[in-house]
């Protein structure tokens, strides 16, 4: 435990620059949006307390806005506002709105009607009644709403990193992707502390007696503004092109670190989630993104992959992984599975993924269409009762491959097939295989090398991102360690890749990462 804390502290010390920037961005994001939410929510709350029949619809809409999952809301913002600070602030603002509007409304309608009547009877006009009576008396309730909104915002602001708006989410989600606990904690602990701190400070403000609140209320907007200033909007760079990389990519040697060390690439980079990255590239919010080379969106958004001419991205060639005891039990299995070998290259796989991910065809149909087009498809044979168990991870490409294997086994052998799709990530599906719950699943050489074997750096360097040597290495190691066999590669390489819009790449004559580097330098 002690040791663990040490390393966390070390990490935080090491990354203190980033930590400070992210924390300030986080505070800034929280309070800019809060400030605007107060600017909108307070008058809106007052207004619906005057025009009561609007209160139902307004509170209803604000309530619905709050039930939209944060990621989805951020996603909706991209076509409207692009990526970066603007959509993040708007999304946060929408979340903060409900508690502020609702509490302003309840606070004001809750003011003793006798007191209000007295104020009118003394000869106050409606503004005087509002500012001298209603708002001061509703203030504790309103502050409670602002307090709730603040805590919500500190939490949701972690998601801002998904759309390149910075904040502590960069560490949190980067850490999750990289399975780096220290990194997660370096983001999560400050975020939690911010929430607790602001909650505490606002609770103090709430407890002040009426007298002092009068002064404090005047100070509050100023304070909010100052806190908001922590956030400098990061789009004010002069770089020619803008890159958007996932948190995972940012932290990996075979990702951004390699781009910097091997290519010397210097590009204005923002951190963004995989879910919105492609879209942002299409919308010209980003020019260069880190993606997977067979992703269907490549085709959907007309992006091209830049050639990795210095070979920093390890090969991720897909091949079926089979338990050796299953190969013995099902003698025809190996030849059947190898029928796909060499048939699917990168662009074919991209096309197939495009059909499932983008055209929403079922993986089964896509698989069948492909097998029929290549003449491999055969109708199902009589089953002899023996069953091959197929597994897959939880994404489209794996579903398609598993479906193809299933059809091939049924068509060419008389084994039955049982599929266990959706086995989460690598760890889950591989555990299922070593525990003899599945016989076959498609895996990638890079994953085998880095995630499963966790090969040491010197081995990785030695393999030099070569397709064949990597395949040979994992094949030997798996056989040795797990009694699991890599069959022949299917053909495509689903590796990390840098991508650009086809049109822009053509205009700038950029084909390789080195081209990109040259363009950026001159």
């Amino acid at each position, binding site marked *: 435990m002690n040791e663990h804390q040490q390393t966390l502290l070390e990490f935080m010390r090491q990354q203190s620059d980033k930590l400070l920037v992210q924390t300030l961005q986080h505070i800034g994001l929280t309070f800019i949006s809060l400030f605007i939410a107060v600017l909108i929510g307070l008058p809106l709350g007052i207004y619906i307390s005057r025009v009561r029949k609007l209160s139902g619809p307004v509170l209803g809409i604000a309530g619905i806005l709050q039930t939209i999952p944060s990621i989805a809301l951020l996603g909706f913002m991209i076509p409207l506002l692009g990526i970066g600070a603007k959509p993040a602030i708007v999304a946060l603002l929408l979340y903060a709105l409900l508690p502020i509007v609702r509490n302003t409304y309840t606070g004001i309608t809750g003011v003793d009607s006798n007191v209000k*009547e*007295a104020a009118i009877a003394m000869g106050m006009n409606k503004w005087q009644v509002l500012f001298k009576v209603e708002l001061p008396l509703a203030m504790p309730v309103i502050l409670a709403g602002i307090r709730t909104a603040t805590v919500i915002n500190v939490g949701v602001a972690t998601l801002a990193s998904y759309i390149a708006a910075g904040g502590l989410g960069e560490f949190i989600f980067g850490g999750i992707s990289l399975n780096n606990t220290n990194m997660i904690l370096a983001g999560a602990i400050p975020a939690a502390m911010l929430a607790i701190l602001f909650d505490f400070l606002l609770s103090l403000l709430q407890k002040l007696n*009426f007298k002092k609140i009068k002064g404090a209320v005047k100070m509050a907007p100023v304070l909010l503004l100052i806190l908001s200033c922590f956030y400098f909007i990061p789009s004010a760079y002069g770089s020619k092109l803008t890159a958007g990389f996932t948190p995972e990519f940012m932290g990996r040697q075979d990702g951004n670190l390699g781009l910097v060390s091997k290519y010397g690439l210097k590009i204005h980079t923002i951190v963004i989630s995989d879910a919105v990255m492609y879209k942002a590239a299409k919308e010209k919010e980003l020019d260069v993104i880190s993606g997977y080379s067979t992703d269907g969106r490549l085709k959907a958004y007309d992006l091209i992959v830049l050639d990795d001419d210095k070979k920093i991205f390890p090969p991720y060639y897909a091949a079926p992984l089979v338990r050796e005891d299953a190969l013995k039990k099902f003698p025809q299995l190996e030849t059947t599975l190898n029928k796909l070998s060499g048939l699917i290259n990168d662009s074919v796989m991209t096309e197939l993924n495009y059909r499932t991910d983008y055209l929403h065809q079922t993986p089964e149909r896509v698989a069948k269409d492909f097998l029929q087009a290549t003449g491999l498809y055969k109708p199902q044979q009589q089953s002899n009762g023996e069953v091959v168990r197929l597994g897959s991870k939880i994404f489209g490409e794996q579903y398609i491959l598993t479906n193809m294997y299933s059809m091939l086994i049924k068509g060419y052998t008389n084994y039955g097939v049982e599929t266990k799709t959706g086995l989460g990530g690598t760890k889950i599906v591989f555990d299922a295989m070593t525990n003899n719950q599945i016989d076959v699943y498609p895996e990638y050489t890079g994953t085998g090398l880095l995630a499963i074997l966790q090969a040491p750096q010197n081995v990785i360097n030695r393999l030099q991102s070569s397709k064949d040597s990597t395949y040979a290495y994992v094949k030997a190691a798996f056989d040795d360690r797990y009694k699991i066999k890599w069959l022949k590669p299917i053909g495509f390489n689903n590796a990390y890749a840098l991508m650009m819009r086809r049109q822009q790449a053509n205009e700038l004559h950029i084909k390789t990462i080195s081209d990109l580097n040259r363009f950026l330098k001159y």
Partner: protein
Amino acid sequence: MIKVSNLIKTFGQTHAVNNISFEVAKGETLALLGTSGCGKTTTLKMLNRLIEPDSGTIEVDGQNILSQAPELLRRSIGYVLQNNGLFPHYTVAENIAIVPNLLKWDKAKIEARTNELLEKLHLPKEYQNTYPPELSGGQQQRVGLARALVADAPVLLMDEPFGALDNVTRSKIHAEFKLLDELKRKTIILVTHDVQEAFLLADRIALMDKGQIVQIGTATELLFNPANDFVKDFLKEQHLQLELKTIKLNDIWQYLPADGRRINTSQLAATAGLWEALDTFKFYPRENINIINQQTREVRSVTFDQLMSAYSCFKNQVPHE
């Protein structure tokens, strides 16, 4: 000073105020008396435009109140609310200073006036900086009164100002109220459902029922000349006490025996009420009290029995309808 003509106000199906007319002379106190829901508060609120009437006119000082911005009108009319309506977030001093601040008085003037009122209303100076919820009901009521009086508005509207008080406190405040010089020069409309209070504090009483004025007149007129059974019934329960409180010794002066033995005993002015005279008797045999008629400087000494028989003579002589 105040002239109300044909005032009507309905809330949906409820005829809260149904064609009311009355006048209040300058310096006079009129009580609006009636059971709960008869439209007293509604009538009162129409006078400072907290409620706008459906029809009818209200003039204050010969001027239609609609001719003035409601805020300005209200600053010239003191108003004591049924439930005091003090600002819980203002101190006592700040509560009292509300109207002066709206009228942009300078600080020193506000402070002087506040102190003056606190003293007149028997509120210790230390209370200036406390908040209303920390005060007793009686004290809150006094602050409410101070707030209505502070700008010395010529008209004062009071909605059951003593309604929430216990009997002892109420009698005490009633007594103070009668002595308060500030109130003597004001035109006051006092809403109450308490007959005793109306009789004690008002010059004239308007007895209301179902949004209408059933009878308007002095206490004596209501007591001895009720317009109908409603008035009679309304006063029946406390009739004797009311009569005794209403009848002044002056009223029965002519029936008091002039030949009573003058001994050294309690003295009472003839302007006092019969109730007070009866109250003075200590009830030992053949006790006398001396009643002095200030105008004629004549003194009549009477026993309890003589006083009571004078009272019954007076009653027989007053015309009943």
